[in-house]
């Protein structure tokens, strides 16, 4: 059953059940309804606390929707009505092998015979990417799609629209010799106008192969935007002539019945029909029917889900903070209603009736909160998307807000469930009371020795922990592997209280958990680790720290009294201010957890952001390999000749290295061929092996230095080095996008066109941007996979001044324009990437900041309740001599203490956990920067200060209200 439908059915079922209970127990329902309406401020506060969960879930879904929608739109822009393509991708990226035109003829015969009812468009084409130059303006463009089409068939894929409006008769235009229709994007780049001549360079970068007449410029809409490219449309016969492939095509475009969006639904039947018609013929030539639109849409859907997941995991911290707040609020409400509950129980009400009363009330809260939460979630998502649009303002795609109704329904239902179960558990907890103590409002006594039930709980926790740990080891799951021991330790601490003091057992367990979570990452080697590790680490670290603080609260109180209690004037205030939170351990623990959890996450993100900012140099060393510029181009037979003959380039480089590449399939030796993934074999020249300084993430044992590794690769064709994209890193989102994964020492099977070779990985680079493949020597690559010209070049400038490097990069593009050379100044690229990543981290910080609002609001709510709850005690304090300002200071000091302790715990744990990322970020750098100099003290101080001041502001009015309580009235309250 569809997940959404399942959850809707579950929620409806749940509420039907609650309604049935209410109808059976109308008196209880009436009590609940009156409790709900009795204190409207309370109701508003509870609903506000409860809506957080729904808001976060909804915003995660909506952000996923929006980003998926943006990508989806870009796919429709790119493919328009094309649903499938038939061809064979060649070794060079983006190019296709040629095959006879008859294949199209055979397929069209089948279509005419009615064998392809799902297909409404079929067009044979030639598509090649080449450099072009506008001979009238002398402006060139390196990568332009020359698309040779059969105009009569191409009209089935939509119409060209002339730039400025008007229909284009492509049949007539393209029937003229050398006539070309170009899209507006290309026209803008080369300043082309109708009538200009376009030189096309196919074989020789210096001598044009042909000159085309730009007859018409069409807008970028529809089929003119094919592959989101700078497109030149010519007739198929002209293309066959231009590329020297008479009677051949290299692609067939297929459009399914239906429009741009609905056509994709026919993908399966269209592919099956084509296979039935000419499947055997296609197979004989290695031609593949690629359901390109369906595949890209599927990828987009997965991406959308991943984005939803990232935000959901990030948001989970806020949701947990919200849940803690709700539990706290319910416990406080229950404390307030305890005498009433005691009387009800004395009059014959059973415990289950009390639970039901709270459940009815809680269900109403859940429905109200989730309803409002959906809209708050929409608002949050809108703000976040607007922030993304701001960060990626210069990006090529437009960011527009979009959401699916299904996401809102899901957000509502999940929110309702989170709230309902939180309320249900809180109700179950608060309904456990001693009738006499409840009526007389006497606090529950501390347990002198653990009960049988408590011990059974401890045993169950230990068993559960063992099972989880074992499961983690068997399934190689980092999350389970890490969680198991934490649960075992908590269970063991419960059991140990039978023999040793709880303070000792819980202290030992919580310290052990802290050590376990912060243990060296190597302990997790080989395990699958993902974003959930961040969440689990945070939860267990905070839990352990808070347990440690709370069980040692008496010692902590003494120490604090000694440290800050020196002043005689502050002592009476401090004594009371610190005693309340330290002696109401459950409430304080919950409040501290709520605060610490959020500060922890914000600190970790601030740390990552700081590492990014400070790792430009390290990233440069890791990613640049000592080079200044990387260039990609069409094959250039001899780059050094080209440089020495160009006065703008000659003698301005210390080193020039080149790589060729070919696409291959790769899988681990001993595994099924079905697991193979596409990657590249990169053939490096001798200069690369001699000059490159790329750092290694890991090296196979037996190799002492990078030089030894490179020498081995150069001289032994069975050894390769791979780039860092095969490695996953802990806690980072990068791992979610990784395909092929490997470790040093792995032997992989590399295959292409029936050729199979085994290669052993002896080194993994830190570099992740430029290679993405297996590096071997050019000589071996040519021997094994056929001849290739180099297409990737690395340059080291003689003068590494960034301005000079930028100028050289431009000169290279100019000098090799006809080879379509595109250059990247490596330092600029890394700086840009890190800046964008830093901005994204900033956005995550804002998103996590929502949790901070929960924490602050939580403290505000708790303080309001505390004033009400302690009214009589305030009266006593005033009677024995506390001045108004002392009462005010007592509350402020208490709030200060809780918030600062929460902030302190969160910051310390955040910094401790980020030590991993520090090791990851700066791995391989020549000298590891001092960790403490990287801590963004100012940023963290700012976050802490804002959180603290906001907390004070949220609670100040309660402190003032407390100070204005008239002692005589407060004392009379209960008497």
């Amino acid at each position, binding site marked *: 059953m569809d997940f959404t439908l399942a959850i809707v059915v579950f929620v409806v079922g749940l509420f039907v059940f609650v309604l049935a209970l209410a109808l059976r127990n109308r008196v209880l329902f009436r009590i609940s309804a009156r409790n709900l309406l009795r204190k409207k401020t309370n109701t508003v506060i509870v609903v506000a606390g409860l809506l957080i969960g729904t808001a976060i879930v909804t915003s995660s879904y909506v952000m996923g929707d929006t980003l998926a929608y943006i990508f989806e739109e870009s796919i429709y822009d790119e493919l328009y009505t094309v649903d499938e393509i038939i061809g064979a991708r060649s070794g060079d990226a983006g190019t296709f092998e040629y095959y006879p035109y008859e294949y199209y003829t055979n397929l069209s015969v089948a279509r005419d015979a009615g064998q392809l009812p799902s297909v409404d468009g079929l067009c044979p084409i030639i598509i090649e990417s080449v450099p072009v130059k506008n001979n009238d303006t002398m402006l060139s463009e390196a990568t332009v799609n020359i698309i040779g089409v059969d105009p009569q068939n191409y009209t089935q894929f939509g119409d060209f629209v002339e730039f400025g409006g008007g229909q284009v008769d492509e049949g007539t235009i393209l029937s003229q010799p050398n006539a070309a229709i170009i899209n507006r994007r290309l026209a803008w780049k080369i300043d082309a106008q109708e009538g200009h001549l376009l030189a096309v360079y196919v074989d020789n970068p210096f001598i044009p192969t042909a000159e085309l007449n730009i007859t018409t410029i069409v807008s970028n809409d529809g089929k003119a935007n094919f592959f989101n490219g700078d497109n030149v449309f010519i007739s198929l016969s002209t293309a066959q002539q231009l590329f020297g492939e008479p009677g051949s095509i290299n692609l067939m475009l297929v459009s399914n019945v239906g429009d741009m969006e609905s056509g994709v639904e026919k993908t399966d039947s269209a592919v099956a029909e084509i296979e039935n018609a000419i499947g055997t013929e296609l197979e004989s030539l290695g031609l593949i029917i690629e359901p390109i639109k369906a595949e890209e849409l599927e990828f987009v859907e997965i991406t959308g889900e991943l984005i939803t997941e990232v935000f959901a995991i990030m948001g989970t911290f806020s949701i947990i903070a919200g849940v803690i707040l709700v539990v706290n609020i319910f416990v406080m409400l229950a404390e307030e209603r305890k005498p009433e509950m005691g009387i009800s129980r004395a009059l014959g009400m059973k415990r289950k009736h009390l639970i039901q009363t709270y459940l009815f009330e809680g269900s109403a809260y859940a429905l109200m909160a989730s309803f409002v939460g959906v809209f708050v979630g929409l608002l949050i998502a809108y703000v976040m998307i607007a922030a993304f649009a701001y960060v990626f303002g210069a990006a090529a795609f437009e960011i527009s807000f979009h959401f699916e109704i299904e996401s809102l329904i899901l957000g509502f239902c999940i929110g309702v469930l989170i709230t309902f179960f939180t309320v249900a558990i809180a109700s179950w907890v608060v309904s456990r009371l001693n009738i006499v103590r409840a009526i007389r409002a006497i606090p529950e006594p501390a347990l002198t020795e653990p009960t049988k039930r408590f011990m059974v709980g401890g045993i169950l926790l230990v068993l559960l922990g063992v099972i989880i740990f074992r499961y983690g080891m068997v399934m190689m799951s980092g999350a389970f592997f890490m969680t198991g021991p934490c649960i075992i330790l908590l269970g063991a601490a419960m059991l140990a209280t039978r023999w040793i003091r709880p303070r000792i057992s819980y202290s030992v367990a919580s310290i052990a958990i802290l050590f376990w979570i912060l243990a060296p990452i190597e302990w997790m080697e080989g395990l699958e680790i993902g974003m959930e590790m961040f969440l689990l680490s945070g939860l267990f670290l905070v839990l352990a720290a808070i347990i440690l603080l709370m069980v040692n609260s008496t010692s902590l109180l003494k120490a604090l009294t000694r440290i800050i209690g020196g002043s005689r004037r502050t002592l009476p205030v401090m004594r*009371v201010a610190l005693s309340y939170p330290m002696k109401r351990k459950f409430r304080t623990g919950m409040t501290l957890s709520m605060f610490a959890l959020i500060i922890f996450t914000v600190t970790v993100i601030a740390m990552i952001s700081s590492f990014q900012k400070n790792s430009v140099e390290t990233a440069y060393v890791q990613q640049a390999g000592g080079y200044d510029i990387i260039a990609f181009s069409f094959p250039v037979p001899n780059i050094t000749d080209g440089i020495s003959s160009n006065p703008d380039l000659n003698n301005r480089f210390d080193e020039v290295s080149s790589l060729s590449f070919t696409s291959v399939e790769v899988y681990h030796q001993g595994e099924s061929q079905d697991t193979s993934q596409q990657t590249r074999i990169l053939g490096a020249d001798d200069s690369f092996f001699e000059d490159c300084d790329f750092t290694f993430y890991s090296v196979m044992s037996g190799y002492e230095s990078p030089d030894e590794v490179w020498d081995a690769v150069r001289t032994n064709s069975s050894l390769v080095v791979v780039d860092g994209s095969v490695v996953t890193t802990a806690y980072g989102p990068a791992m979610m996008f990784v395909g092929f994964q490997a470790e040093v020492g792995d032997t992989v099977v590399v295959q292409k066109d029936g050729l199979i070779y085994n290669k052993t990985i002896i080194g993994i680079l830190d570099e992740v941007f430029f290679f993405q493949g297996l590096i071997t020597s050019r000589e071996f690559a040519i021997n094994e996979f056929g001849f290739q010209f180099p297409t990737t070049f690395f340059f080291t400038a003689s003068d590494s001044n960034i301005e000079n490097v930028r100028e050289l990069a431009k000169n290279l593009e100019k000098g090799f324009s006809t080879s379509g050379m595109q250059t990247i100044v490596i330092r600029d690229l890394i700086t840009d990437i890190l800046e964008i990543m830093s901005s994204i981290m900033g956005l995550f910080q804002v998103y996590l900041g929502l949790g901070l609002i929960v924490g602050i609001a939580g403290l505000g709510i708790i303080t309001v309740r505390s004033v009400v709850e302690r009214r009589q005690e305030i009266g006593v304090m005033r009677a024995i001599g506390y001045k108004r300002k002392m009462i005010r200071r007592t509350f402020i000091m208490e709030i200060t203490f809780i918030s600062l302790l929460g902030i302190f715990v969160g910051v310390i744990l955040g910094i401790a956990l980020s030590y991993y990322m520090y090791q990851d970020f700066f791995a391989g750098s020549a000298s590891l920067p001092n960790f403490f100099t990287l801590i963004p003290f100012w940023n963290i101080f700012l976050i802490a200060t804002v959180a603290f001041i906001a907390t004070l502001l949220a609670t100040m009015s309660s402190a003032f209200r407390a100070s204005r309580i008239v*002692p005589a009235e407060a004392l009379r309250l209960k008497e």
Partner: protein
Amino acid sequence: MEAPVVVQARKLHKIYDTGTVKVHALRGIDLDIKKGEMVSIMGPSGCGKTTLLNCLSGIDDPTSGKIVIEGKPLAGMSDDQKSEYRAKRIGFIFQAYNLLPVLTAIENVELPLLLGGVKLKEARARALKALEWVGLEQWESHRPSELSGGEQQRVAIARSLVNHPAIVFGDELTGNLDEETSSQVMDLVCDLNKKNNQTFVIVSHDPVVGERAHRVLKLRDGTIEREYRPASPG
């Protein structure tokens, strides 16, 4: 020589105005209480006993009239001055004990001393002494919830006396106690009154309290209906 007057009230009126109803709780009370005297204020529920006590101790303000304590008119004091005065010169004992639940017995007792600016070490020693007076030194580190009603009231007495106040106000201090414990508490109060020559003003329903006082003021409808001295006080 006759003992000086420490509490003086003249034409004391207190009206509670709830907006819809006006309740005349005190109707022109005049009284003088001398140093070392133990005065019991008695009367039926709602006669204004607690209101009178609150006004005399400065935790509530009369609607009109004049109160002078140890020669100082309360009306002339600011809220802070009254608080400071209570911290240094007045002790309180309440019916519901009203100890701070989060503090231990000794911490509750030393609180008035800390308010009076006494150093922590000295305050701790004096609080322990006060707990000794009430026979609870061994319960010093227990919290109120771990003590019986009588024990809590004795801690409250220790708290009210620890700073040697000139006047101790008690509101139904035996109200929550059984007969035997009430008697023990009253023994303690009378003993301390004699030993320290402190003034006690005790509001009570309990005839036992009235019998042990030097003077009884009977209140009815906000006025002193009758004043008498019991046969065998103390």
